[in-house]
């Protein structure tokens, strides 16, 4: 009998190749006669293009082709997720073309592409291209961009406004704010981040003139969606004539969900070269300028409530910077995925959020790990601290008084989560927030914190503690919700799985989801090994190629474990059912009398009268004895559309020490208690949390994309952008509570983003707490030594 690996800390199947240097990322692929592409990018944040002279570049050694915008016959890239949900709402849409034609809207927008024999020759030739620009004034700040007199980016977007969107009960919230004992107001900046997967993006285009088909290798989270969008919206090529392959992907964090200009460029370049493959690999500085950034909100927060700790209303106005043109789902992030979950795990009766999507002369902003939910969590968790401090109540106690109670589910929040097509509802289906918070606080030594603060003070340090009790939304999502007209992709969101059983009993699972380091090849094998009673080594998991995998929407939004896994379980159930029918035939029994235990199919009451899964697969593949009407071979596909999202939660607690002399913040302890439901592989879950937490810590303390006022990206390389390093971090302390999700058979919820959603607010709250003796109420991130030290100096008189 096979050992059941479901729920165990199973070593990953992927790692053999990845620890040996045998991984295969896009840049590792070499094709016969491959040419290389380099893209010339605008040095100006805002300019009209007067003309482009490529004549010198064409004569450079090794140059095969030079393309400018006018050479590219395709449509602009699609924008697939407008702000929606209310009648009459306008989205003033402008998306990039493969190469800019008339104007550039940010430093780094592509204006020309060189194809050459080697990457070096292509880069050399870029320098020989002469572009005539008429520079225009630029604006990089989303709030300033909406003011009168600001430089205007697009004719169809007055005051640079993409959309003005609102959700919640405006009048009711206003009345609640007016009636409140206490109202705390604060401007919060959730700074722009550069996601930084360690592998930049890259692709290889290959046109086959014999079949008129296109193949593209891409470092993508969504090969099926890319094929669909490229075919239907950009290139005008039939969908079945494009094949997208996403090999090993070296991290993504959202950045590789989208349709980028280089996809049509390399495909067209290959066609223009008569079918030579064309590779483009993004440099890191190029990645900073041309791949999406994350966050970048300016929020005016009002939190209202009673002196007994009850929060009665949250009202926000958020300016969301979406960049110079829109990325694929840019508008969806600060609307649906942010404002609709603003009240987090709290029972706040009145919520009203206005969101203004804004064009600025910066690279586009889209989903970065957490995508809207980290921004929402930051707002609500800062709000809880600000409110508690204002009324002089313990911060944990305020949270406790406002949590949705365990018996309060299902819970429909007031910021409109319930809205979906056909009256379908999304609701928070489960949760038990207090035990997770209590556990985290106890682990962190919350009760003894004042003593610890005094001890730190004696060492010249200011100790601060901060918590973040977060709610995550995973699964993205039921098609009836996300696909509803005006709220979402205008597309479905189901997942798919195919299982084939070879004659030898070996199993191939083919998935529509797309890993980027999460270990899908391991976790799916654990699940299917459990479902079919076979050892993991008999299973291989395939993915990542639109030719040969069933259509799937890919991996993001922590949706693979809840949506993808359920599709796999459904396919396994179909396999088991057919095997059972065939076992009945082999054992000359009725189907109802066949029982299944692991890989054994036996007659009820006589376990010795049995056929194994392998015997059944063998016989059914040979099929000479198959009964009338039964198809040979075990091969089943299943599609699964989840009825609801999943709702992980937990409490993270950070302890920081601020150095009195330098303002340096040290993260001294980090405790995380997460409830992600049941776990398929706890080792992988821990790893996802570690990575997510550190990305969020990075935002709180160090990271920030900085543009000068004229639109130059000052944090333009890894020299200038502070990615967390090993020596800056303590050992993270993880624990759990387990509230299985009621929505899927495994009871799993998803964990890819939870860490990043929770940790930023926990650390920011801790630093603000540490600075209380200086009279500091709120500091914006990143809380670098300069920021902290300045605040300490300016308020030194207030020191207790």
């Amino acid at each position: 009998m096979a050992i059941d690996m479901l729920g165990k800390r199973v070593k990953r199947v992927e790692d053999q190749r990845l620890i040996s240097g045998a991984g295969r990322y896009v840049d590792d692929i070499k094709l016969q006669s491959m040419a290389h592409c380099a893209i010339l990018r605008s040095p100006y944040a805002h300019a009209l293009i007067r003309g482009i002279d490529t004549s010198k570049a064409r004569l450079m050694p090794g140059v095969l082709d030079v393309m400018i915008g006018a050479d590219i016959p395709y449509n602009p890239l699609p924008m697939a997720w407008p702000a929606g949900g209310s009648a009459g709402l306008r989205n003033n849409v402008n998306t990039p073309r493969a190469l800019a034609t008339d104007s550039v809207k940010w430093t780094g927008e592509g204006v020309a592409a060189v194809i050459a024999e080697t990457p070096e020759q292509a880069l050399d030739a870029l320098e020989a291209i002469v572009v005539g620009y008429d520079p225009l004034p630029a604006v990089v700040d989303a709030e300033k961009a909406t003011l009168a007199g600001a430089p205007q980016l697009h004719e169809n977007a007055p005051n640079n406004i993409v959309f003005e969107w609102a959700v919640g009960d405006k009048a009711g919230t206003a009345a609640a704010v007016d009636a409140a004992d206490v109202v705390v107001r604060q401007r919060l900046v959730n700074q722009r981040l550069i996601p930084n997967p360690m592998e930049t993006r890259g692709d290889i285009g290959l046109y086959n003139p014999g079949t008129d088909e296109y193949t593209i290798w891409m470092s993508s989270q969504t090969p099926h969606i890319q094929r669909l969008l490229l075919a239907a919206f950009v290139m005008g090529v039939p969908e079945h004539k494009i094949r997208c392959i996403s090999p090993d992907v070296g991290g993504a964090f959202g950045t590789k969900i989208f349709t980028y200009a280089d996809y049509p460029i390399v495909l067209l370049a290959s066609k223009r070269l008569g079918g030579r493959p064309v590779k483009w690999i993004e440099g890191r500085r190029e990645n900073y300028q041309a791949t999406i950034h994350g966050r970048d909100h300016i929020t005016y927060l009002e939190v209202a409530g009673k002196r007994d700790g009850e929060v009665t209303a949250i009202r926000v106005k958020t300016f969301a910077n979406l960049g110079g043109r829109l990325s694929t789902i840019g508008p969806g992030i600060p609307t649906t995925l942010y404002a609709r979950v603003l009240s987090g795990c709290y029972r706040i009766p009145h919520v009203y959020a206005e969101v203004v999507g804004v064009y600025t002369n910066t690279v586009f902003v889209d989903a970065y790990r957490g995508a809207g939910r980290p921004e929402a969590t930051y707002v609500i968790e800062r709000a809880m601290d600000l409110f508690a401090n204002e009324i002089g109540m313990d911060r944990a106690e305020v949270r406790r008084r406002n949590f949705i109670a365990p018996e309060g589910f299902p819970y429909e929040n007031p910021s409109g989560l319930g809205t979906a097509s056909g009256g379908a509802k999304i609701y928070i289906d489960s949760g038990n927030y207090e035990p997770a918070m209590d556990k985290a606080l106890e682990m962190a030594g919350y009760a003894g914190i004042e003593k610890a603060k005094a001890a730190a003070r004696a060492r010249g340090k200011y100790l601060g503690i901060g918590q973040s009790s977060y709610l995550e939304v995973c699964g993205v999502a039921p098609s009836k919700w996300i696909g509803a007209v005006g709220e979402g992709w205008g597309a479905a969101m189901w997942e798919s799985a195919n299982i084939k059983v070879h004659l030898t009993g070996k199993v191939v699972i083919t998935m529509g989801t797309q890993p980027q380091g999460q270990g899908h090849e391991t976790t799916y094998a654990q699940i299917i090994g459990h479902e079919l009673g076979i050892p993991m080594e008999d299973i291989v998991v395939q993915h990542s190629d639109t030719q040969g995998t069933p259509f799937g929407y890919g991996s993001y939004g922590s949706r693979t474990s809840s949506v993808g896994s359920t599709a796999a379980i459904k396919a396994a159930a179909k396999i088991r059912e057919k095997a059972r029918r065939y076992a009945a035939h082999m054992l000359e029994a009725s189907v109802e009398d066949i029982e299944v235990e692991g890989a054994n199919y036996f007659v009820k009451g006589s376990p010795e009268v049995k056929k194994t899964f392998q015997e059944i697969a063998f016989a059914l593949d040979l099929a000479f004895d198959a009964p009338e009407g039964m198809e040979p071979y075990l091969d089943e596909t299943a599609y699964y559309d989840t009825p609801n999202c999943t709702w992980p939660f937990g409490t993270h607690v950070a302890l920081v020490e601020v150095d009195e002399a330098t303002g340096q913040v040290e993260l001294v302890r980090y405790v995380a208690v997460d409830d992600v439901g049941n776990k398929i592989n706890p080792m992988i879950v821990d790893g996802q949390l570690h990575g997510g937490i550190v990305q969020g810590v990075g935002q709180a303390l160090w990271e920030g994309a900085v543009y000068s006022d004229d639109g130059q990206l000052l944090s333009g390389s890894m020299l200038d952008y502070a990615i967390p390093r090993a020596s800056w971090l303590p050992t993270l302390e993880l624990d759990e509570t387990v509230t299985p999700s009621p929505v899927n058979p495994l009871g799993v919820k998803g964990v890819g983003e939870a860490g990043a959603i929770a940790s930023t607010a926990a650390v920011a709250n801790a630093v603000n707490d540490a600075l209380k003796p200086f009279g500091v109420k709120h500091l914006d991130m990143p809380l670098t030594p300069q920021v902290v030290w300045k605040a300490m100096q300016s308020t030194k008189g207030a020191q207790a």
Partner: protein
Amino acid sequence: MVAHVSLTVNGKPREVDVEPRRLLVQLLREDLDLTGTHVGCDTSQCGACTVHVDGKAVKSCTMLAVQADGTTVTTIEGMATAEGLHPLQAAFWEHHGLQCGFCTPGMIMAAADLLARTTEPTDAEIRHAIEGNFCRCTGYQNIVTAIRAAAVVMRTGVAAPSGAVQGGM
């Protein structure tokens, strides 16, 4: 102009003609097809390209190929032996010290340099030693655990149980 480079890579003598501007990492990846060494940045920050040159960890994007003439280079592909994986490779696997795997070869090479200098590193020493290697997936926690565990194996020949189980390959 072409320069000639003779070097030993993973125990094998290699002769390569290169442009003078070719970097060591390009020689390894493009000329010798040793694509386990990765390029993650263009400013020598990320460490994904770390290899050993004459026994010392070097970011192979900071070195011209011609500077490697006459040297002995070890890449991730040269770490395992006929007896099996290098203890660091085994420990990264055992302790989930990698996710997307892109930084992993460089991280292992940097860690191997540390363990050649220090047999019993503290966590702080480990974290300091890999400061020049970025990982965006793991938060470094399991990397530190893996390096600590590999140090024990290299010192004592015995691996402490991690609780992880082999799921088959």
